[in-house]
């Protein structure tokens, strides 16, 4: 009996050790993010990236100044997109849940497949359309472009969360005389709220971190997003890495904080995205 217990104990220890080692490896960039953004110039010159040095907010100050505009820009673009994609996406998901027909399934599948295609391929027609609509290099243009990709994503995610609602509950509401919008407002939304939060957070983080679309649609530096603004901080010879890390840290702060506080919703959103066409 004790022989077996020992085997179990050892297994558990090994299990934990392996995960701790791997986890530590995975956390190295986060560790670097923390300590290197807070180094002084002399610290940068003296120590390598992985060794800590004296504490200073100098680099952070400089970076916050430089990035405050891009971060505000990001918020301005990203929040409406996340809100609209989640809410309007839920409406669409509800419709597809309610009205099941061969046509609907086909349309749904086609759009779902389109969301999985690399979005960069829409580069040329996207720019053409945005320019011809006169919204190039503007807030509306970026929000418009984001919606083209993320509204279908929102609908796809919400369709997964809505699919688990028991049909009889919704039918009961119809028998009770409720119109579709009432059913949506009073039954679907309350019952899918965790799913809506997951979708919102997933899209929030994805759009915040999206690099390509703002890169091609925004030309003036005053309107740049946080992710694109990082371009100026890539290592080149002579760059001081404390600013690079501080920039990476500040630019990632909002999604990281959301991830830390509401991580389980993000994870649920990821899982739903993976279930994707599995509806």
């Amino acid at each position: 009996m004790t022989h077996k217990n020992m085997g179990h104990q050892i297994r558990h220890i090994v299990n934990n050790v392996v995960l701790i080692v791997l986890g530590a490896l995975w956390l190295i960039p986060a560790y670097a993010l923390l300590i290197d953004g807070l180094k002084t110039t002399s610290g940068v010159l003296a120590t390598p990236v992985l060794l800590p040095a004296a504490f200073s907010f100098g680099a952070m100050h400089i970076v916050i100044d430089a990035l405050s505009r891009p971060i505000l820009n990001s918020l301005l673009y990203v929040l409406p997109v996340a809100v609209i994609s989640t809410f309007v996406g839920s409406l669409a998901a509800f419709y597809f849940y309610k009205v099941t027909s061969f046509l609907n399934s086909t349309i749904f599948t086609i759009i779902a497949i389109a969301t999985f295609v690399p979005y960069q391929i829409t580069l040329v027609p996207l720019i053409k359309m945005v320019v011809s609509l006169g919204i190039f290099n503007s807030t509306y243009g970026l929000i418009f472009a984001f919606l083209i990709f993320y509204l279908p994503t929102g609908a796809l995610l919400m369709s997964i969360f809505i699919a688990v609602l028991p049909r009889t509950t919704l039918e009961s509401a119809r028998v009770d005389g409720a119109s579709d919008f009432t059913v949506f407002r009073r039954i679907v939304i309350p019952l899918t709220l965790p799913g809506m939060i997951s979708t919102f957070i997933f899209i929030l983080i994805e759009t915040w971190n999206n690099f390509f679309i703002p890169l091609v649609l925004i030309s003036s530096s005053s309107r740049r997003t946080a992710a694109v603004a990082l371009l100026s901080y890539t290592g080149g010879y002579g760059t001081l890495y404390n600013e690079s890390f501080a920039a990476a840290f500040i630019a990632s702060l909002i999604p990281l904080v959301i991830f830390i506080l509401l991580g389980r919703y993000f994870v649920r959103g990821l899982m739903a995205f993976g279930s994707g066409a599995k509806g």
Partner: protein
Amino acid sequence: MVKIKLENITKIFGKKGKEFKALDNVSFEIPGSSFYGVLGASGAGKTTVMRIIAGLETPTMGKLYFDDELVAADNKDLVPVETRNVGMVFQNWALYPHLSNYENIAFPLKVRRWTAEAINSRINELAEILGIKEIIHKRPGQVSGGQQQRVAVARALAKNPALLLLDEPFSNLDANSKDDARSLVREVQKSLGVTAVIVSHDPSDIFSLAQEVAVISLGTVGQVSTPEELYDRPRNIKVASTLGEINFVDAQVKKNSGGYSLVIADDVKVKGIDFKGLGNDSADRIKIGIRPEDLMVHKESQTSNLIMGKEWVPMGEFKASSANYSQGNFMVALQDQKATLKINALSREVVNPGDMVELFVNQEKLKFFTLDTGELIPK
């Protein structure tokens, strides 16, 4: 209060090539203010009938009338679900989990824009009748199955519907709660006078509540009559099976001086049958149907002391191959000596597998069916 009429209702599910006919030319009438039953096995189509009446499905062909108003016809819903004024209790009750019981019942009234005071007095009224006052502010998940069911009934009745639909409403309740629930529903229907339709696979639901019953099997109506009529004179074998457990055995009719006798097997003969419906040909072959509760089993040692009514006729000696105890009775599986027959009978005595017993049959309860069509031969 509303009268319902189904006229040649056919329902086909699925797309070309993979079609499934759930209902085929179903017609019957539900009188206003009556308690009507729709009985059938799972998959027979009874739930589809209910959903069509409610408006959750549209009949592919046929017409549905509410009080002479055409409500659905030929793949079109002329009156949508939301305006049919039907109250429905789903099999799983379908209560809104995020709302309290009070808010659940209030929901249909809020949709109709009743004032808060009107809603309050209505819910108090219903809570009183259905005995759910104490739990009215709890959530469905916090109360028992029986209480949830009463909340569901209250919600269905809240808007004073013209029709109350009950879809296997008691199947999720334990045996004790079922009886209470049935009485309650019966009382409520009677006092409110609302037309009620109960759909179930359990004959006890039908017998305790329905005044008239439509038996559905494989999408068609087998028979429409009162529960007693269905039980005693089922039109055919299908209907007889739907109403409860029944034994079927083939038999040959022989006429002799004392009347008729039925030869079921070499060693199983039932003599002294008083039976006029059989033809003059004394060698008819028929199928006999007899329910376990219309058979009596006695251990051999006891037969000499028995006093039985004239209707009980001996069938011979059988061996018990297994015995199940259920709700005060033993359901015994019997085999004749040559093991050619298998008959299930009810026994009030303890019977163990391997026991030899004497089997008696209540000849008045014997049902005769033709061998080829399975139709009832009237007595």
